[in-house]
């Protein structure tokens, strides 16, 4: 990859990475949130592939392929299976912070991420570390989604966004984490989504909906 196009492709991939996180806050339909999360997994895999091609590292490219298969393929498929068939289950109900305010909060969190990572970027300026604020912003937006959404599935999408952001930060700031750690984290994510699928099915049969705020008191 030439020296001119490498920063441009990296910028475009990281822009898509951040935009899908904003999109998850924007959309109401749970299926749209899952689709955007899959797109974000593809953007993350693209970023790591571009880094691997630039550093001529076959290991990074293999890790990128594994990341793409897991976060853009397997996890969205499992999450969609946890979604359920009824239309009443298809939307996010009354988030704690409404959508317009969440979007403004996302803008504020992005600016916060830029301010916080300025010393880190100044430490080792390069096209890869210039993207670091976007990854930290995705961490913050994922955490925000986890905290302000009511449905179990949207909270798990927030958690997965958080992990995507952490992985991206690891690959941009350092050279990624050791392969064993990456495998362990991926296995944990897989378990989380599988447990979610079982849990939402049980919630739905027991209480009729997977809105976690309905579980505030004991039912008969």
């Amino acid at each position, binding site marked *: 990859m030439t020296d001119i196009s490498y920063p441009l492709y990296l*910028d475009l991939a*990281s*822009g898509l990475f951040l935009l899908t996180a904003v999109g998850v806050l924007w959309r109401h339909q749970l299926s749209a949130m899952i689709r955007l999360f899959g797109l974000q997994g593809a953007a993350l895999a693209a970023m790591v592939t571009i880094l691997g091609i630039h550093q001529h590292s076959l290991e990074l490219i293999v890790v990128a392929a594994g990341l793409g298969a897991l976060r853009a393929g397997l996890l969205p498929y499992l999450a969609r299976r946890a979604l359920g068939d009824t239309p009443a289950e298809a939307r996010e109900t009354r988030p704690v912070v409404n959508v317009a305010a969440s979007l403004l909060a*996302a*803008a504020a969190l992005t600016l916060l991420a830029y301010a916080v990572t300025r010393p880190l*970027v100044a430490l080792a300026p390069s*096209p890869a570390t*210039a993207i670091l*604020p976007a990854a930290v912003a995705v961490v913050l937006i994922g955490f925000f989604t986890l905290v302000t959404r009511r449905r179990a599935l949207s909270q798990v999408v927030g958690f997965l966004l958080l992990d995507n952001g952490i992985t991206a930060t690891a690959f941009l700031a350092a050279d990624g984490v050791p392969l064993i750690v990456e495998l362990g984290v991926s296995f944990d994510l897989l378990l989380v989504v599988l447990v979610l699928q079982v849990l939402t099915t049980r919630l739905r049969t027991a209480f009729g909906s997977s809105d976690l705020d309905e579980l505030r008191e004991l039912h008969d």
Partner: protein
Amino acid sequence: MNGAALIATTVQVVVVVTGAPVLVGLMRQVQARLEGRAGAGIGQPWRDLRKLLRRAPASPTGTGWPFRLAPLLLVGTSSVLAAVTPLLSTASPLDHTADLFAVVGLLALGTVTLALAALDTGTAFGGMGASREVTILALVEPTILVAVLALSARVGSTNLSEIVSTTLHDPLRVASPASLLAAAALLIVVIAETGRLPVDNPATHLELTMIHEAMILEYAGRDLALVELAAAMRLSILLGLLTSLFVPWGIAGADLAMLPLALAAFVAKVAALGVALGAAEVFIAKLRLFRVPELLAGSFVLAVLAVATSFFFLA
């Protein structure tokens, strides 16, 4: 004062005034054909304007000067915008007026005058239309300012002509993330400001869905012709501004010989963008009014991201 630049500015105003209803007619014709109707033809808005101009205006009892002033002020601000924005050439005699803040201020002045006129009528429709329009305006103005600020950060000046000529000399800048995000934000802003789907249906007359139509409901005759002409002019100026900022090839500098080419390029680009917008409108539905602030907040976030990437990215 450069004679060539003066000619270019005059041609800009004439083209916008005469071509704006044709653009509206083209968009309506494209929509009609896509919906399976024969359509009224591209010249229908001009025929409507001609009919309206022959009739005497009527003002409701109890209205004062805001009602009578609004059509004149709307056409006036639109004409000044047509002269000031760099549509055909970047060397205009009003160059120091072509600043971002002045342009956004003129747009807002026109909108606020119309909202005041709607309130002046004292009807329920006028009040409702005015309050909805001002809600949208309050969310749209920061977005325009921030999105064009993202483009001006690299150039070092908020002068629109300078931004356009810098983009002319450095074409790869259009593909940068800051530029793409600003383009997406400005597209949503143009749709909201000109009252197109999904923010406002320009062909509706149901009170639940009217925003712009509700404000001009009491106008008749010459006043209505002026208001319709001003709305068409604002649409063509905003679409022209979009193409000038992001697809500027063809805009002339101070050279008079490039003017016919610049005119042809401008007409082609704005017509293509108008046709695309009209065709897209056939496939989308109008958003609920409570969802419109979400869309505008989303476009504001895109504009803020554009500013952040333009200030902080290395490449």
